[in-house]
């Protein structure tokens, strides 16, 4: 059982235990769909939806799941919500669904979600699990937003499709291609580590 206050339970996902920058989880979608802000945002939302509902279900039925088959049960629960998210996007937002492609079904194997079920929801109350899932989701959306904003602005000179850079700006095509994703995330990780070291040494 976690003993943190409700506020701490939420904010730990934003920085201390941020899934992308601190725990290095869920890197595949983080790298793959952040070539435009709209894609990063949609992916962040879809993942949050799956994470929040899976946490709710797992924490409410945790007593009935035998521990030998718990991973398999979590995976089936997660896969169900992913199917819902996938169908929903395909029905109401076909262009987004098309540009995310097979990365929506891939949410199933996103280690953030399975990790939270195993590490948190299976041991804590429904309320706490919800707060934890909300915090982790916000942290994930935040990371997606930062990464995709950097890549879209430098790679295309736009933000959410609106021109933000002047006429003089020559887009860095590399940023919206795969290498740009790796390099941007590498630099962001180093930055996060540096900030963490600075704040630690001050304490």
């Amino acid at each position: 059982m976690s003993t943190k206050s409700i506020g701490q339970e939420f904010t730990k996902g934003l920085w201390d235990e941020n899934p992308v920058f601190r725990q290095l989880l869920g890197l595949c979608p983080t790298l793959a769909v952040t070539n435009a802000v709209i894609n990063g945002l949609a992916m962040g939302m879809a993942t949050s939806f799956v994470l929040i509902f899976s946490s709710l279900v797992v924490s409410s039925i945790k007593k009935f799941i035998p521990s030998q088959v718990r991973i398999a049960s979590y995976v089936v629960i997660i896969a169900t919500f992913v199917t819902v998210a996938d169908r929903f996007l395909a029905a109401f937002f076909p262009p987004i669904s098309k540009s995310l492609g097979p990365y929506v079904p891939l949410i199933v194997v996103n280690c953030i979600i399975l990790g939270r079920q195993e590490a948190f929801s299976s041991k804590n109350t429904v309320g706490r699990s919800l707060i934890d899932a909300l915090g982790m989701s916000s942290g994930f959306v935040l990371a997606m937003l930062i990464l995709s904003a950097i890549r879209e602005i430098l790679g295309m000179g736009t933000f959410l499709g609106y021109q933000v850079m002047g006429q003089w700006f020559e887009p860095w095509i590399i940023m919206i291609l795969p290498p740009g994703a790796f390099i941007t995330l590498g630099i962001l990780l180093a930055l996060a580590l540096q900030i963490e070291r600075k704040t630690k040494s001050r304490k």
Partner: protein
Amino acid sequence: MELVAIFVTAILINNFVLRYFLGICPFLGVSKKIDSAISMGLAVTFVMTITAAVSWVINHWILIPLKLDYLQIVSFILVIASLVQLVEMFIRKISPPLYEALGIYLPLITTNCAIFFLALMASLRDYSFLESVIFGVGSGLGFTLAIVLMAAIREQLDLADVPEALKGAGIALIVAGIMALAFLGFSGMIK
């Protein structure tokens, strides 16, 4: 000819790691030594080949005839999880030395998104049975190539003077970025 194109494309042009960002976790985690990188690569290739074949059978003989294709996500993930388990038991019986060599990497493959992506992609592109298997082998070899190259670079990196904050994942990702840049050069090979 078609099959050769699928094979080469899967290894070099649409490399799973460097183009689709799949299997980043083992790519970063198991790439510190060349030996373990080779074992991991071969284990993935092995499971990918079998997954490609089995998921094709499930998709074309069960899901599509029964119009259950919306259950693809759930059924593929279950197939992969049980398959990895089966392969593990099989290898342990048939070839203990190989089992020893693969060790912990085998169960880890279940959570490798590359395998799941492979099953989805083969169904999305409507590959025939043979094409699926070739796609599986090629993708596995592509993963092996990427992870072994990465391990070779990282063994050298150990001797380099890397800034404190970039150590570990940071520098590994930047190296991967430069590798991805190099692999982009292959994209003109096949139209």
